């Protein structure tokens, strides 16, 4: 029972972590809470749905298509709605992000209707594996495996490549990085691209897991992923992974204990409690205040 719930929690948590990474990377670089990120995830789920049901492609190809489409969308949104606001107050950029979020979810509602749609049968053959008393589906294992692969790939990009170094430099100090000859605009676009690709992968996986894709799935998932990013310490990539997993596991545990009607509140209650003890999140850097 415990093991079963743990696997359920990790599968759900790794999808939160995938979305949370996008929030945390964007925040780390331009200190913007990108509220449209949840909608990118929603678009990813829809693209995956259409790729499997209309183009009838393999599940992995569908995920790749979703990632490419979301990369384009994410970079486009940054170019249109955030770049003109980079020099103005952070609140303006925040409102702009919320505007994009409302726009995208309404557009999805108009184009695809208000009903939740499911992935076609047999996109991914689900088998149940019994280990001890626990029943684990191959889908859950797939989700965990894909998320882990993507996160390792991300760690590699951030720490071992030149663009990753540029990202870290920009996040450390935007102005100095620009003075050092880093093309800051390119780095920011790249960050949005990375985050959007991860969100798209998360969207396809969640669409498959719950077998429901709808226009408003982005809002709550986005808020929870944002909570996960803050829980881990916003701006920290390992923090986002940890936060996502933690939220997923506690949420599943809470439902298992019998608080299922409080499901959406559990994540936020944990968040508030953790922040009261550690005001900058679990792995967040302590902020030195200077006058």
């Amino acid at each position, binding site marked *: 029972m415990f093991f079963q719930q743990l696997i359920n929690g990790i599968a759900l948590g790794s999808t939160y972590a995938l979305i949370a990474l996008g929030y945390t990377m964007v925040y780390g670089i331009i200190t913007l809470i990108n509220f449209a990120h949840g909608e990118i995830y929603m678009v990813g789920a829809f693209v995956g749905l259409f790729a499997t049901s209309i183009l009838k492609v393999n599940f992995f190809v569908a995920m790749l298509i979703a990632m490419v489409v979301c990369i384009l969308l994410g970079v486009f949104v940054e170019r249109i*709605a955030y770049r003109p606001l980079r020099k103005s*107050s952070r*609140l303006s950029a925040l409102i702009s992000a919320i505007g994009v979020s*409302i726009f995208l979810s309404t557009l999805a509602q108009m184009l695809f209707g208000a009903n939740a749609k499911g992935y076609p049968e047999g996109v991914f053959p689900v088998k149940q594996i019994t280990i001890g008393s626990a029943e684990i589906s191959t889908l859950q294992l797939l989700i965990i495996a894909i998320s882990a692969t993507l996160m390792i790939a991300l760690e590699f990009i951030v720490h071992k490549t030149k663009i990753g170094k540029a990202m870290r430099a920009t996040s450390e100090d*935007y102005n100095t990085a620009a003075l050092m000859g880093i093309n800051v605009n390119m780095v920011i676009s790249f960050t949005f691209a990375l985050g959007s690709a991860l969100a798209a992968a998360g969207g396809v996986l969640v669409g498959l897991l719950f077998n429901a894709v709808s226009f408003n799935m982005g809002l709550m998932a986005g808020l929870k992923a944002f909570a996960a990013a803050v829980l881990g310490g916003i701006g920290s990539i390992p923090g986002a992974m940890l936060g996502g997993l933690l939220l997923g596991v506690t949420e599943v545990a809470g439902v298992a204990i019998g608080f299922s*009607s*409080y499901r959406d509140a559990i994540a936020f209650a944990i968040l508030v409690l953790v922040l009261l003890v550690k005001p900058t999140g679990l792995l967040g850097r302590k902020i*030195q205040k200077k006058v």
Partner: protein
Amino acid sequence: MGDFLQQLIGGINPYYLQILVNIGIGIILALGLNVVTGLTGQLSLGHAAFMSIGAFTSALLTIKLGMPFSINLILTGFITAAVAALIGLPILRLTGDYLAICTLGFAEIVKVVFLNLDITNRALGLTVPAPNTTIPLPVVVWAVVLLAIICVSFIHSSRFGRALMAVRGDEIAAEAMGIDVTLYKVQSFALGAFIAGVGGGLYAHFMGYINPSDFGFLKSVDILSMIVLGGLGSITGSVIGATILSAAPEFLRFMASYRMLVYGGLLVCMMIFRPNGLMGTISFTGLVLRALGRKPHLKTIMEHKISETSRPVNGDT
């Protein structure tokens, strides 16, 4: 008096009256958030939670006790403010975006709890009876609007308001000046919640039906958009922002399903072309004085400049 007002109101087209009341409630909520976010500089993404608490408190006071509406509203405000102070005391120690996500989390928790309580009728929501008063509701709403504007204006120019602005400018410097930062933050939070609670009570009685889901994240965002659109910290800005955004859905109604699409696009465009809000940092009283020929110093017109004009350098926040 009641009959006279009733006749006066009866002469107005009910549709316009409804828009007017919506605008009034929008202004009240925006003014409340403006104290917290505009004046004290604490970003709150959960203002709708206080509106929700106010709406349900006020509705229950009418349903269970049949309390006179004026006492009902005042009591509602105080109860909401008490809840805000209770919540604010621990979470206002957080700064910036951590506080923002905490308020957001609090709002979600309030929503889910109300959806599960018997007294709030769970997910079915409450049907609110007519308020116990002879004065028509639109008059009450606009009376409260005027009161709120006067109150917040006084606060702006009072010792209390200056302390709040000092906290917004720099918390550490304010503390060095002998300002109890946490105390002032909690007070401003409670004040904002008081106004939001009263707004919620008016909303509940005007709508006649309330549901916890009405006060979700999007409602909070609505209120925040109003004050950012109008210009943070500016009372005139709040009033104008609230008027535009409360009336916008009505004027966009001819577009039917494109309404929210245009609304989202509008938010983005307005931010890009007027990043400091429509009124920006201009004060209305200053402009009037100038128009009357009593030229005040330009500095008083450009009051309340938000210190946060550009993105802060990382590690400095």
